């Protein structure tokens, strides 16, 4: 328990702003919003595509039984 409390305390006190990308900052609000929006877009887009295809394959797998035609021909 003391270890857990210490870990929480460190997590609360130690983190600081990390200027990891020197170009991803601009005083203008429009520019910051554009960076945020495109980061979210490019992060979630591939995940969404892979999830979408996975769900489609699962649906197709349930639709066609082992002895049925696949419907492509």
């Amino acid at each position, binding site marked *: 328990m003391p270890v857990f409390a210490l870990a929480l305390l460190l997590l609360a006190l130690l983190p600081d702003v990390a200027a990891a990308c020197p170009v991803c900052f601009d005083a203008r609000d429009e520019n910051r919003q554009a960076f945020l929006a495109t980061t979210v877009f490019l992060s979630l887009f591939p995940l969404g595509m892979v999830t979408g295809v996975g769900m489609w394959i699962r649906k197709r797998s349930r639709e*066609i039984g082992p002895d049925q035609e696949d419907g*492509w021909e």
Partner: protein
Amino acid sequence: MSAHSATANLESRPEPVRREKLIPNGVMGMLMFIFTELMFFGGLISAHTIVRSQVAGQMWPPFGQPRLPVEQTAVNTAALMASGFVLVLTWFAFRRDPDRARIPLIISIGLGAFFVLFQGAEWVALLGEGLTMTSSTYGGFFYLIVGAHGLHALGALVAMGWAWYKLDRGQLTGHQLATISAFWYFVVLVWPLLYWRVYL
């Protein structure tokens, strides 16, 4: 275990069931290619959004650069959308009777060719007005994004022309049509996003 009992064991096993493919190889390969292309266009659009947000005073197009033909391109966009819709009809016609798919496929190709030719005419006019790759980041992004899409459209049209050639000889398979259609649907469906971000 004797050879006789091993053979008997094999014979008592149930026959393996041959399951049809969930996705044809061609369609799967095309989907993987389309994913990479979507990320390519996603990257271009993201870069365009960032650069546009950095323009002082939000003046877009920048001073001295011509305005893009929004209205004319909207008509061209409608032609491309119609081409995609007719290709869906082509698929259903092909499922009923391949011979009945000839006319919708050639209409779809014609509408797609109209789109590419109209884009070419638009480029000639814009070059005449002074918008070039090097005239500004506005021009650079326009030719890069719209040009990349145009090249994809051209490639897809060549593939559809090949599909029509095979269909005319009764050699086109459903897998081939599905693979080529997937690419054309990508070209059609990505365009409204590009139009919204680049033209509007």
